[in-house]
């Protein structure tokens, strides 16, 4: 029996509304993601990798093409709304992803409030999540301005995980972080994947990070798919562009 992909896109196209250029932001992207996988999307800026991630996260709808979740087509408001509740997104710039006027603990419990959880449940889940990402309980009542970028990124991760999502999409999760604690973030992400079975989609412009974390890597160049390869296997038919990228390491 063939396994049904958790998330699958075929012939995805996207062009930004109102842009006069005829160039499409994305052209003909096919992608299958199975539950529990770690998928990387690699590309330079302007390659459409962020656009693709926004489409996968349901923020944008593809201009044409098919998006399947668990084998069901994503179409219409309701399907999208249900879908959005089962995924989470981690933005590149953690400072922009939190409201500066709310405390850490409030930020983490926010998605649960929207889902009308009970107060005790919210408190226990939020503190569990904050502990998981290694936040010192002394700092739970601090404001984001008082934390380092690395810490805020982990707060965002805690917020994302508080709802128990099936898919976690991370847009350049490490680029704002310092060298010395990138590793910590990577470790937490891998832990989530192994222990909670969260499917990870990681977007990056650095092949190093992706080769390190993911098994499957999609390479984008100017809105087109260049390669999709499994890094555990021998890959001798990679395109020139991919080789150029990988050789820079």
């Amino acid at each position, binding site marked *: 029996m063939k396994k049904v992909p958790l998330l699958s896109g075929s012939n995805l196209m996207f062009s930004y509304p109102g842009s006069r250029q005829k160039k499409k932001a994305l052209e003909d992207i096919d992608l299958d993601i199975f539950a529990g996988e770690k998928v990387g999307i690699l590309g*330079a*800026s302007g390659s459409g990798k962020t656009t693709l991630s926004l489409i996968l996260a349901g923020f944008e709808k593809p201009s044409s093409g098919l998006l399947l979740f668990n084998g069901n087509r994503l179409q219409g408001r309701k399907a999208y709304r249900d879908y959005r509740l089962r995924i989470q997104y981690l933005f590149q710039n953690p400072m922009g992803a939190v409201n500066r006027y709310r405390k850490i603990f409030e930020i983490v419990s926010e998605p649960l409030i929207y889902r009308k959880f009970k107060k005790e449940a919210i408190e226990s889940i939020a503190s569990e999540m904050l502990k998981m990402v290694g936040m010192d309980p002394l700092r739970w009542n601090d404001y984001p301005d008082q934390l*380092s*970028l*690395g*810490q805020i990124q982990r707060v965002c991760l805690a917020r994302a995980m508080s709802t128990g999502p099936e898919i976690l999409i991370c847009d350049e999760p490490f680029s704002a972080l*310092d*060298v*010395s*604690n*990138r*590793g*910590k973030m*990577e*470790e937490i992400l*891998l832990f989530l994947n192994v222990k909670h079975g969260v499917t990870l989609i990681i977007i990056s*412009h*650095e*092949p*190093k*990070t992706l*080769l*390190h*974390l993911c098994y499957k890597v999609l390479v984008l160049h100017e809105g087109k798919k260049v390669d999709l390869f499994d*890094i555990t296997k021998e890959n001798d038919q990679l395109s020139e562009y991919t080789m*150029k*990228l990988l050789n*820079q*390491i």
Partner: protein
Amino acid sequence: MIKVEGLCLSVNKKKSTFRLVRDVNYSLEQGETLAIVGESGSGKSLITYALLGMLNHLEGLEGTVEAFGQKNILKASSKEIRRLRRNKIGYIPQNPRESLTPTLRIGSQLAEVVAAKTGKSRRSCRLISRNLLQPLGFSEPEKVLQMYPHQLSGGMCQRVAVAMAIASSPAAVVADEPTSSLDLLTKYEIIKVIKSAQEEQRFTLVLVTHDLDLAFKYCNKIAVVYGGRLFEMGTANELYVRPRHPYTRGLVRCFTGAGMANSGLHYIPGEPVSIYTQFTGCRYFNRCQMRLEICEVKEPPCVRTDGRRVACWLYGRDEGK
């Protein structure tokens, strides 16, 4: 050629004094390439700003920077500073697009800089600026000169900035994270452009970066900065093979650890300190795994051990007592 001794910078804010840069010493010969490596908020940029005379208006600036025939840049008058900037030293900024004036055409900005640096008339500088752009990888320099910064990509803007920096064949070029806002491929292109200009003009290059890859690949000397202090300085090779300071060891392990597929992840526990915190002992104390008792109370001096400088009690114990 460049000799920095006892560089300190402190700033008074809200009644307390923050020592942003502490006791930085280094020297460079003509044609060398120094990488100043550090994490965000470590004060690595400030160290190079001192070299450019950008901190001279601040009160809490101490030490001497002897370079380009100037006894002490930190005490130079603004006229002398301007002469240095025009003739001796080039600057490549961090955000290429934001470092060019948005309301002026590339050609007019470039010509103005060239005119200021060479002392020639604006008109003749138009030609010079075209010739400057040619070897930097522009296929149609004429067209670029007619454009505005927002019409160019980040990489192209950075090439223009490189052209401005090397216009007067400077003795040194300071590049402040020249690639941090660029893509992977563009990043290496820009570095190669800078390096080939260096080979041609033999200037000294000071490269501020947080990217160890660049530091190890393109530089022959590396200074590791943490919390406004120079923790370790030596040749790139030595630092890579035998890092001495615990922090350098951690960094090098982070660097070599990544890159191999699913190998053990390495990170240094704790958060990097900002220079805007106050210290008594060693700034790395909280995160250090090899700390001693003395580290908490007294800042380690910068000592020389086999050809490099290290600021750590593990090596400076004898002198400390």
